[in-house]
């Protein structure tokens, strides 16, 4: 800035930066609380005053992944001595790990986490591939009623999930798709497709038409030009769109709650159902939440340059 800054302006600037730091701490507080509770000893999760400093341990994660029962009596010292270190942690908490023969019984968490992965990845691949083709079509060819079609596509994204879920549930019940991966994948593709079309159209519009036209002149067919010239140019856009679709599918709750209950249940409806009755074990819940949120946090950093585009369906690019 060319203008000369007065000492008052400099002071105000410093004040603003301090305010930003305080706001950042407030906004990260709840996330920090999830992360720290995931590493707390059970009894420190619910103390007055809340415990901020403690020796971190990974016992909540051991509990998260194993099936356990409350011990009726003290553990046999010989059994305890022979147990591996992680099993000792469970014994220390007054519980024992359930086993069939020698095989440790896993909790439902890894299954639900895997379901989330399968459903999010498959639906993302489908939504992004279809969306990329459609976006290219809208970007390059004349289409009658283009604006109306694009509005129609976007409006499907705005439908409240519960509204769509009622008829879909009835239809899925008829064809046996409730509580199936395919059923959930279809719903997520339908939900993400419009987003993918709009976002990819923004990216496609930015690739100069001249690139393909030069290729067409050089004897490429339109298909070859699309696959060999346009797709590589759009790679960043495709990656960003895919990450957004993945996050949306990963986080989705309402469809998953309504359509799945066991076999295909994903993590978002499962994690709250762990609370059950009685005093919840917040450390185990926090451990599950922490692992579930971690991929999204990493993706947010990878996506940071494209977040604005993503949240405005590609309309605002900067």
């Amino acid at each position, binding site marked *: *800035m*060319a203008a000369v800054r007065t000492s008052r302006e400099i002071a105000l600037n410093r004040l603003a*930066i301090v305010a*930003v730091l305080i*706001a*950042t701490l407030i*906004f990260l*507080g*709840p996330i920090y609380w*999830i992360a720290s509770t995931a590493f707390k000893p059970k009894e420190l999760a*619910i103390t*007055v005053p*809340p415990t901020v400093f403690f020796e971190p341990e990974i016992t909540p994660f051991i509990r998260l992944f194993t099936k356990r029962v409350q011990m009726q009596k003290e553990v046999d010292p010989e059994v305890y001595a022979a147990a591996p270190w992680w099993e000792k942690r469970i014994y220390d908490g007054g519980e024992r790990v359930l086993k069939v023969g020698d095989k440790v019984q896993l909790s439902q968490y890894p299954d639900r986490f895997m379901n989330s992965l399968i459903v999010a990845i498959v639906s993302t691949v489908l939504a992004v591939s*279809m969306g990329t*083709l*459609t976006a290219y079509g809208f970007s390059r060819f004349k*289409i009658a009623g283009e604006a109306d079609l694009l*509005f129609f*596509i*976007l*409006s*499907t994204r*705005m*439908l409240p999930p*519960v*509204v*769509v879920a*009622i*008829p*879909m*549930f*009835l*239809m899925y*019940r008829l064809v046996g798709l409730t509580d199936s991966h395919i059923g959930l994948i*279809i*719903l997520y*593709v*339908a939900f993400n*497709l*419009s987003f993918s*079309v709009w976002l990819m159209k923004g990216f496609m519009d930015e690739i100069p038409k001249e690139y393909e036209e030069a290729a*067409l002149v050089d004897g*490429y*067919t*339109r298909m070859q*030009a699309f696959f060999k010239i346009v797709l590589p140019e759009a790679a960043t856009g495709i990656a960003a769109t895919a990450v957004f679709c993945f*996050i949306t599918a990963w986080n989705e*709750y309402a469809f998953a709650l309504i359509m799945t209950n066991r076999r295909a249940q994903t*993590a978002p409806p499962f*994690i*709250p159902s762990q609370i059950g009755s009685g005093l919840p074990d917040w450390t185990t*819940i926090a451990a599950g939440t922490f692992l*579930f*949120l971690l991929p*999204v*946090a990493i993706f*947010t950093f990878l996506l*940071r340059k494209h977040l604005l585009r993503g949240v405005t369906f590609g*309309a*605002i690019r900067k």
Partner: protein
Amino acid sequence: MTSITMTTLDPRTRAAARGWSDLSIRNLFIIPTIAFLIVFNIFPLIYSLGYSFTDFAANQPAGSWSFVGLQNYRDLLSDEHIWSNFIITAKYVIVSVAGQMLVGFGLALLLNRSFPMKGLITTLLLLPMMMSAAVVGLFWQLLYSPSWGPINYIFGLGDFAWLSDPNSALYAVAITDIWMWSPFVMLLSLAGLSAVPQHLYEAAAIDRAGSWYTFTRITLPLVAPLLLIALIFRTMEAFKTFDIAYTMTTQPTAELVAIRLYKQAFQQWDTGKSCALAYIVLIMVLAITNLYVKYLNKVKER
């Protein structure tokens, strides 16, 4: 063929002569998507429109329903319970969206200057909106806990039960929603603020314009279109809110329309009436969507 004739040929017709024609490629690329959306979004809605005129209950044997005409809609519109759900939702939308606009725009004003690690801090501030509302909402139960929640401890609120007090449950959910979605408003506002040409501020400084004058006459009008987009989008999303409120509290005073719809459809199995309620909600959402797209296109054209 010489190179001169090659470049003068229209590439489209040349390409059309080889391989697929442009028309068939266009159809191949677009029709599957449109068909998919019609089959899995529009067809179900037509299906449920049909059921909205019946007393169908999904937990009863198939075929045991009868046509009731507009009865469901009449019942819903005269049901005080439903009206109270709409009033709760309106309160929720107003409080949470107003909070998000204020906090988000405020944060953007603070961030709109250069300082070390600005990029990192901005990204950290955006984290809440990327996370699963259901899962994060669940965890806020611990933060709000009357006996060992850090919030009550920090603010010295004793054993105030945020989520089980009928008067505060809705606002507690709104606060969590403000925490989650202020970053969204911040992101859009920052884009608007950084697009304000610097020379306008310089001109204002030369004219010795006060900072309030500069803010209301330069900053605000130029950021307004993006703020409007944020406002409409957040209003629509807040109106549809289901997951965050559903995992946080069971208080009837925090029963939003979407929660009411879920309970009616999947707990009371009052399917016919739920389809009718879904349609009322749908029409409201589509009206806001229309407005949203209109402004989105307007900003895009600039």
